[in-house]
């Protein structure tokens, strides 16, 4: 029974995503303003203008686990940031705690540079593996956050409580922090330590807000539609239960 429900949900989401992506719109979709994303767009622009560096930390979510979705979303965001800052004097540095994600971050950055027409500026070591355990990753990423010229730390992906050390290091350097995580403990820590925290599924909205890819925007709209259907379903089921129906 559970598998049938899951299959129906996946099929519905797939059809909705395809329909919304391929639909011809007269005007682009308008989303509510999220302060953290406005700040991120501004930080990317400033990094190019003042020659500072962006540090993008994309967490430890292995692609072989359910947490890999956070890493995929962070890579999509990295693609957007990479394109916008590829012409900066100091290219963005990407740290991750999973080797496969680190390799993908290099590939993503290279694609962003190619897309911006500045392939010769790409440096393979801009995407690096910071550490294999949570705290070795945090310690290594803290070192990057403390480097000269890092003006903004973008911490988006799968983190645990160790993200608190990263925000602290960033704050000591007076750098801007944009942070989002899927883990509930990390979200609570980010709420207390980041100026503009992103909560819950806002992590998955990041590529749609920073770039203008129709698939990312459609994905966000599909999430909204499914969320409202889910809320409706929960109300109906609660009402049925209150009425004594099984």
């Amino acid at each position, binding site marked *: 029974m559970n*598998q049938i429900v899951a*299959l129906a949900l*996946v099929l519905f*989401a*797939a059809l909705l*995503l395809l329909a919304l*992506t391929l639909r011809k719109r007269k005007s682009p979709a308008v989303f509510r303003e999220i302060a953290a994303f406005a700040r991120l767009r501004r930080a990317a622009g400033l990094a190019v203008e003042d020659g500072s560096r962006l540090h993008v930390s994309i967490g430890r979510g*292995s692609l*072989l686990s359910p947490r890999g*979705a956070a890493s*995929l*979303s962070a*890579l*999509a965001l990295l*693609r957007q940031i990479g394109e916008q800052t590829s012409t900066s004097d100091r290219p963005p540095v990407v740290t991750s705690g999973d*080797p*496969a994600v*680190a*390799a*993908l971050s290099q*590939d993503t950055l290279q*694609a962003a540079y*190619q897309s911006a027409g500045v392939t010769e500026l790409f440096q393979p*070591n801009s995407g*690096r*593996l*910071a550490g*294999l355990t949570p*705290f*070795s990753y*945090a*310690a290594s990423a803290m*070192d990057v956050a403390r*480097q*000269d010229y890092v003006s903004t730390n973008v911490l988006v992906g799968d983190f645990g*409580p160790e993200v*608190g*050390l990263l*925000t*602290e290091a960033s704050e000591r350097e007076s750098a801007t922090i944009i942070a989002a995580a899927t883990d*509930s403990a990390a*979200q609570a*820590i980010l*709420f*207390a*330590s980041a*100026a503009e925290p992103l909560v*819950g*599924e806002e*992590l*998955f*909205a990041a*590529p749609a807000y920073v770039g203008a890819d129709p*698939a*990312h925007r459609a*994905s966000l709209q599909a*999430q909204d539609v*499914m*969320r409202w259907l*889910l809320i409706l379903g929960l109300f109906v089921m609660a009402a049925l239960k209150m009425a004594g129906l099984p």
Partner: protein
Amino acid sequence: MKGKLVATVIAISVGLFILVGTLLPFPILVPMRLELLRWAVIISSAAVMVGIANLISVHFQKVRRREKNSIYSAVLILSMSFTLALGVVFGPNGEWTQALFEGIIFPVEASLMALLAVTLIYASVRLLRRRADLMSIVFVVTAALTIFASISLPFFGEIPLLGDVIGPWLTSTLAAGGARGLLLGVALGALTTGLRALFAFDRPFGGK
């Protein structure tokens, strides 16, 4: 270009196969799905070697250029080589390898954990100064109530009302409900992100 196309076709085919094998109960799909997952584990292990080579390369360049704090990079390369040598000679469960883990790595990670606790207390104290809005006040009051509800005072034991009524209600009703809401949102986000990769709208493996 051709390589990217091949990578995309392989990634989409394997992704679809795993998804179908998970959702449809056809017995023939189960061993094939498990075999593909075994391949993925082997490839991830190879990725660990590539990642470590990348880590050494980054730190070696820092030492070579004599960058600021490059002494730490030198220490990292030396200790990594030493640990690798110990692992190769004595094996991962050898006495010396275990001593290294128990004597250095675990205590260092434990001290970082302790540092994290102090950092979090400091962050909570500064929260209201940084962002004095309704949600921050709710956050701090809830955290304080939960902490006081879980402690027991000398001679008195649990704090009356807080320990037996308000504390359990906060954690099992409000916090659990909120956490489920967040998890549902994250699950929907993960679903659409996965589908984007499956439809090749996002191709981190093939240059998009």
